[in-house]
């Protein structure tokens, strides 16, 4: 590997100072990505990723190392933890959006097998389903009995569960300062209005996006292993192993942080909702402390829908215009974020596309429903729906096809090549109706739509990674990170194996224990950019250290030694080589341990992504059949190509489900959620999945960048545009369901059933 000195670092060295450089990093605060500048050491001998052609493991398809544990049922999730004397905890929820409540504890503790009932903030509740008590019993069934038996007196208070209710003049107060919060404006309204007046084509529309639920298959929860005494283990289904300490759960047990180990070996999906251990974590600790026994506290599926977070809904009103040559000139938008008692998420409009002059007013409208939480690219899919629809509406008015119009308004040529790639993948060149709807005689119309995405996260110093090499050559890498299913454990092992020229199975990756070292939570696609550099750094130091020790023993110059295919070789004397285990015997009885930290030059920031959807719309039934969805995504160095494709597939599946099916339904008169179960909250199943073409943009030669988020941003938008391209019905509210399509066909006079 070459080691060209960095100019800034070299200059600093000449002046005799420790070299420093200022870099911009991002972190996730309450689900929002926040940027900040920090100073880091600039090192001239920093590790570097090998050239792509020299990589054996990274940048190829790797089987995930924990696959066998997961396919045999051996992988133990929090939900599966069983401990001697363990009690089962459950929460008791308030059935009103707002109420005053009084709990009669004795009504449940009278039941045999019910061990304890604790009240939670006895007083007023602020959102539908807010827990008011927690119970613990000998079995899950008895805990459920206790929930049923517990008598709670509720006095219903005024509430608002919809945007209209919250904005009404006589609205019930949701927040302390009213029902509108965080009002922000951006841009010059007068200039935007003036620009709008000069446009050749304009659109004025309201785009509505409902609340989506995360639907993690493993519900939120923890198992607290506390049996009195001065230590405890907390197993948590979380996307941040260290959150247990950050939320000070040890204090709830009367323990110091150092006396508590948190464990996240396997977890069944988070998607942004599992940063906090939440009220269930807190109450599990309090129940456990009260009983001096382990407590298993996993939310029920209904709890999950009512109190474990969601993707905020959005109400977006847009007025936008373009010039006859297809350039976006003006956009005036008003965005209401609907995150229950939370503030909602939205990156603002315009989104991704260049618009000459714009004005934005954005605010949060509060309702008595549980707070939104981060969900895969918080706010971006909502913004994408309004932006991509607007773009498409203007393109159609101007008679320009969707692909060409997009290119005219996207400065980055990366988008151009990605759009061309996905267009080719869905058969755009041969598509007969590029500009207008399908006018063929067939009742089933075909359409193609596009969408683009962006994501930005750079890593930051957050992880400390340890590599241990035993005198027998055993290699272990330890990190307090967690694997949400993205394949973290596998690339942690692969980075080390690559550096040490060993096969993948020669390295054991141990993760998911707080004692394994500092690590960030997995959110904002920051796991790879924070963790991979630290793993690489630790592995690099291990390689240097092994070669130095072996060189001592051999009396050789370490610079003339190298690791190659499980052997230490001498560059000039190729016959002199040592097997890995033999070489490691030179390390002495203790072996060696290195620690790695974040290295700025080992990662990068800012990705693009383009998607195209090809759909069929039955103009008799309004049914949409997805034929094919193609995505091209840049991600810097793909650490595991197979896992990257899985991530892209997964994002597209979750987004097409969002687009076509998902919606939290709350009755505005009764204030109850009508579909708080998986039988009624529809998500995509196997029959709904089209052919998905997941392409990695290999023209991107940067270091590895996380891409959990970006491919989930534009899929539903591309589908909405494809539906319009097929049948001429513009859907401005999600989900993109067949009843809305039928209404549109009838209104347009194009329903295949004739006159309605």
């Amino acid at each position, binding site marked *: 590997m070459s080691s060209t000195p960095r100019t800034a670092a070299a200059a600093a060295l000449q002046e005799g100072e420790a070299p420093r450089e200022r870099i911009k990093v991002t972190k996730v605060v309450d689900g929002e990505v926040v940027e900040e500048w920090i100073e880091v050491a600039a090192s001239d001998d920093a590790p570097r990723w090998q050239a792509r052609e020299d990589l054996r493991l990274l940048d190829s398809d790797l089987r995930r190392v924990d696959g066998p544990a997961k396919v045999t049922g051996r992988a133990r999730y929090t939900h599966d933890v069983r401990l001697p004397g363990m009690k089962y905890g459950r929460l008791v929820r308030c059935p009103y959006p707002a109420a005053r409540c009084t709990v009669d504890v004795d009504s449940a503790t009278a039941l045999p097998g019910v061990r304890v009932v604790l009240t939670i903030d006895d007083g007023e509740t602020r959102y539908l389903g807010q827990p008011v008590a927690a119970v613990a019993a000998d079995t899950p069934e008895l805990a459920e009995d206790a929930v*049923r038996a517990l008598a709670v007196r509720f006095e219903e208070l005024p509430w608002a569960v919809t945007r209209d209710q919250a904005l009404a003049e006589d609205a019930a107060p949701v927040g302390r300062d009213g029902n509108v919060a965080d009002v922000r404006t951006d841009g010059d309204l007068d200039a935007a209005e003036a620009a709008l007046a000069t446009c050749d084509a304009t659109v004025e529309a309201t785009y509505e996006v409902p609340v989506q639920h995360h639907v993690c298959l493993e519900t939120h929860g923890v198992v607290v292993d506390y049996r009195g005494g001065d230590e405890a283990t907390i197993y948590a289904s979380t996307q941040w192993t260290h959150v247990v300490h950050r939320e000070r759960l040890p204090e709830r047990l009367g323990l110091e942080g150092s006396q508590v180990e948190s464990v996240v070996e396997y977890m069944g999906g988070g998607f942004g909702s599992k940063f906090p251990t939440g009220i269930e974590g807190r109450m599990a600790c309090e129940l456990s402390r009260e009983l001096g026994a382990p407590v298993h506290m996993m939310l029920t599926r209904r709890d999950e829908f009512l109190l474990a977070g969601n993707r905020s809904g959005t109400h977006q009103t847009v007025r936008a215009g373009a010039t006859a040559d297809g350039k976006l000139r003006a956009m005036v938008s008003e965005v209401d974020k609907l995150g229950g008692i939370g503030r909602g998420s939205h990156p603002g409009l315009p989104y991704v596309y260049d618009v000459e002059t714009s004005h934005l007013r954005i605010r949060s409208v509060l309702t008595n429903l549980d707070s939104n939480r981060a969900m895969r690219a918080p706010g971006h899919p909502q913004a994408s729906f309004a932006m991509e629809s607007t773009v498409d509406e203007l393109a159609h008015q101007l008679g320009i096809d969707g692909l060409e119009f997009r290119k005219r308004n996207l400065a980055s040529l990366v988008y151009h090549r990605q759009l061309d790639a996905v267009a080719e993948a869905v058969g755009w060149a041969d598509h007969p109706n590029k500009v207008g709807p399908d006018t063929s005689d067939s009742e089933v119309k075909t359409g193609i739509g596009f969408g683009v995405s962006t994501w930005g996260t750079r890593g930051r110093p957050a992880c400390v990674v340890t590599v241990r090499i035993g005198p027998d050559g055993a290699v272990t890498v330890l990190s307090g990170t967690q694997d949400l299913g993205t394949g973290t454990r596998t690339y942690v092992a692969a980075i080390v194996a690559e550096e040490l020229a060993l096969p993948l199975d020669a390295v054991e990756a141990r993760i998911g224990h707080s004692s394994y070292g500092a690590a960030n939570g997995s959110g904002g696609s920051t796991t790879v950019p924070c963790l991979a550099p630290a793993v690489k750094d630790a592995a690099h130091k291990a390689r240097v250290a092994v070669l130095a020790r072996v060189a001592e023993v051999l009396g050789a110059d370490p610079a003339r030694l190298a690791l190659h295919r499980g052997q230490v070789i001498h560059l000039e004397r190729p016959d002199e080589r040592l097997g890995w285990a033999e070489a490691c015997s030179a390390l002495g009885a203790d072996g060696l341990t290195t620690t790695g930290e974040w290295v700025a030059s080992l990662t990068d920031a800012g990705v693009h992504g383009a998607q195209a959807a090809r759909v069929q719309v039955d103009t008799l039934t309004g049914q949409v059949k997805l034929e094919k969805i193609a995505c091209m995504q840049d991600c810097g160095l793909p650490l595991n190509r197979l896992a990257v494709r899985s991530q892209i597939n*997964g994002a597209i599946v979750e987004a097409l489900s969002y687009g076509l099916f998902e919606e939290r339904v709350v009755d505005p008169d009764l204030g109850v959620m009508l579909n708080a179960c998986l039988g009624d909250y529809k998500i995509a199943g196997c029959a709904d999945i089209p052919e998905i073409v997941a392409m990695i943009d290999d023209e991107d030669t940067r270091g590895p960048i996380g891409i959990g988020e970006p491919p989930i941003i534009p899929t539903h938008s591309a589908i909405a545009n494809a539906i319009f391209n097929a049948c001429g019905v513009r859907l401005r509210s999600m989900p993109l369901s067949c009843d809305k399509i039928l209404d549109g066909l009838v209104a347009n006079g194009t329903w295949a059933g004739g006159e309605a």
Partner: protein
Amino acid sequence: MTERRVEEERRGFSRRAFLQGAGGVAAASSLTEAVHAAQDPASEVQRMRGPEEVELRVNGGTLPATVEPRTTLLDALRHRVDPPLTGTKLVCGEGACGACTVLVDGRPMYACMLLAADVVGREIRTVEGLADGDGLSPVQEAFCEKDGLMCGFCTPGFLMSATGLLERKPDADAEEVRRALSGNFCRCGTQPHIFEAVAEAGRRLREGGR
């Protein structure tokens, strides 16, 4: 001032609440009696009055378990056998997601929708029974190779549905695979790779794998 008992299931009309509301054990027995009678006219119908020790035939062995009349097969596997068989997952508890799919006499069934007492004597296979020692079954092997899993929580259910299909019909085509798996949800979005894995497993089984 209104008073309302906080109830978990009554609002949602769950099967369990229905059984309890409708006289509990008697209702459960009369429903299942009919099923048993239809499937096996010679079977002896036994009524349960409370917790009872039963023997479940699981993965080729016999496991004692103390079950209540309301105990589902899923709860029995996860909580009432020793050691607990936690590979089978609880996700929805109402027969909507397929995470608890097991094979009962070779057919994929939702363990959350079966009462443990009703499957006494029937042959149950769970994800723990697929591998032969360290040797993965062709379906398990293909899931690993094609990355047909991410968080892994839906994986046992998908494996059992796929195994049930391929043991019956190793030459199932893509459409049949999709249909056979349509009772299973995956939220990570592994379906495209699962389809590839099941196709690959079918190929191996036809070529004489286990």
